[in-house]
């Protein structure tokens, strides 16, 4: 496989060296240039070709957001990954960057171990995603439907097998939703903003959200969502009793689960068990706990943009033990059509719709006004 060509833009010479090593260590990409000056890097881009740019979120003397916009304007096909050092300032810029077209971000603390496995895996996942995306675009533009056929067919066959095993959701038992769940990863913060900002002020079903995100970033994300959402929104805290008219976001770095407490109350617990699907918080962990805490209830699960397949196993479990309706975000509106694809191909999605349609549908289905 041809390696991805990478440009690194970071004003810290030590970090440039560290990041170059990490990129080379993945074996999937090679660094063709590492620049300490954003202006010169943009010049260089004019007559050189790369597929990926790793851009420092807090580059001295420049606005990384401006640089990001320039790249996206002039070289739309290049994927930009932001490098964040995890400080609050950089977290804010990073989230803003995700809204402005950055694919994702990696957190690199200066002086970090370049052989760090977690980071290496994160880069590998990102690079494979970019490679897959490039290849799909290529085959689509060459109009050769055969290219992906074999894969699709086998996926369809799998589909039919799984469909038989899944308990279909029952519209007659669905008076209204007892709970709404949302899972998101790459591209998620942006998609969540669209989804959350559209809820009416009197939406009164509890909403639990898992967004794959490091611990330092949840606070900034919750605050930014809170300004754009009419429903109260907080990070889930250990011991929180789930109440309607509230959005709970899983904090980064731990798993969020739900327990059945006295008098039909459900409480949130935060636990420190190992990563699942390479992530923590994991949607699978939350969903599986809900399948038991909300056994027999009406649960509406939504899978938004993101790479990987976190959420799929959890939804399968929800379908077994609850009356679960599942919405997957459409490929056209996903930044990365990974998680929605995996539930869709497993035959778990009851509906596939565009991002902007999701909240109106949630409102209708939650109120039992859909069938």
């Amino acid at each position, binding site marked *: 496989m041809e390696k991805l060509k990478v440009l690194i833009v970071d004003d810290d010479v030590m970090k440039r060296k560290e990041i170059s090593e990490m990129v080379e260590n993945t074996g999937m990409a090679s660094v063709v240039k590492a620049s300490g000056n954003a202006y010169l890097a943009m010049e260089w881009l004019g007559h050189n070709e790369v597929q990926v740019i790793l851009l420092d979120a807090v580059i001295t003397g420049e606005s990384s957001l401006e640089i990001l916009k320039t790249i996206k304007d002039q070289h739309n096909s290049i994927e930009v990954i932001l490098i964040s050092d995890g400080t609050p300032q950089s977290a804010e810029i990073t989230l803003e960057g995700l809204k402005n077209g950055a694919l994702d971000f990696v957190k690199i603390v200066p002086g970090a171990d370049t052989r760090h496995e977690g980071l290496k895996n994160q880069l590998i996942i990102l690079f494979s995603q970019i490679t897959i995306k490039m290849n799909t675009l290529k085959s689509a533009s060459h109009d050769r439907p055969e290219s992906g056929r074999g894969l699709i067919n086998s996926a369809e066959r799998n589909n039919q097998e799984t469909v038989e095993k899944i308990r279909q959701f029952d519209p007659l038992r669905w008076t*209204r939703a007892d709970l709404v769940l949302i899972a998101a990863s790459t591209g998620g913060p942006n998609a969540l903003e669209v989804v959350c*900002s559209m809820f009416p*002020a*009197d939406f009164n079903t509890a909403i639990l959200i898992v967004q794959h995100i490091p611990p330092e970033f949840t606070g900034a994300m919750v605050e930014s969502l809170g300004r*754009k*959402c*009419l429903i109260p929104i907080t990070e889930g805290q250990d011991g929180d009793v789930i109440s*309607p008219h509230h959005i709970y976001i899983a904090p980064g770095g731990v798993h969020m689960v739900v327990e059945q407490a006295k008098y039909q109350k459900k409480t949130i617990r935060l636990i420190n068990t190992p990563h699942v699907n390479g992530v923590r918080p994991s949607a699978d962990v939350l969903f599986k706990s809900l399948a038991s805490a909300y056994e027999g209830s009406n649960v509406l699960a939504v899978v938004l943009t993101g790479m990987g397949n976190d959420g799929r196993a959890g939804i399968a479990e929800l379908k077994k033990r609850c009356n679960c309706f599942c919405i997957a975000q459409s490929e056209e509106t996903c930044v990365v059509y990974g998680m929605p694809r995996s539930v869709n191909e497993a035959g778990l999605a009851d509906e596939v719709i565009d991002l902007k349609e999701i909240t109106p549908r949630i409102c209708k289905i939650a*109120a039992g006004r859909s069938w």
Partner: protein
Amino acid sequence: MNNSLSPREFALLQKYIEEHSGIELGAEKAYLIESRLSGLLENYSLGSYEELFYKAYSRKDVIFTRQVFDAITTNETFWFRDKTPWYIMEDLLLPQYIREMQAGRRVNVRIWSCACSSGQEPYSIAMSIDSFLKKNGPGDIGLERFKIMATDLSGSILDLAKSGRYDSVSMERGLDPVMIDRYFTREGNRWLISERIKRAVDFRQFNLKTEPIYSQYYDIIFCRNVLIYFSELTKENILHKIINALKPQGVLFIGASEIIKDASGSLEMDTYQDGVYFRLKG
């Protein structure tokens, strides 16, 4: 044309929305009010949000006022919402009240639906009692012995409730054909609730947050999916008021997925089948 929302305009709209829907919006939601209402500003060629506020406030244009609220809320209302209060009433409460009335120990039963919106809840209460009396009741106790009070903040929504007229979409939410057949008549594309049921409910405009109520007056209070829209402090105050309005042994129903914090410890949580209700101790 000034299209941005000033702090003063936000304060006006915030207060207006709270007074008419009970929904408390914090200062951090200013941006959202702006984005939700900007379309109306444009459609009606209004110069500012202040103009929008006065247009809604004057209530000359009912459709406009309605659109303002539609942009912020969905106003979800259902007939016989949640199954549990209805069978708790029919299995536990109504048989007890009827026994007491027959023994001459009770004159009537007072019920309060404290945020009745367009009337589905109080009318459901009346229909439930009427059906129960027809099926199980002794002939000498009629619906008139049950005094149902229904209140809401919004005068315009109360007018709708009082009219007893519903469109086919609202009829679909929670009503079974037997009930429709028994209590409604069709008027073109609308449905009119029967005069008996309408007469059983007394509608009044009332602000739960600011106005006083009788103490130890009600046997049953329905306060479902109301408190969730208020801040913690307001919630506590309203709950205190509701507890005060209950007779000893009186019953409070809250929404199926709601939680309340009763700091005074005067309520006792009881369960019946899979339903939860609260009883005032004493």
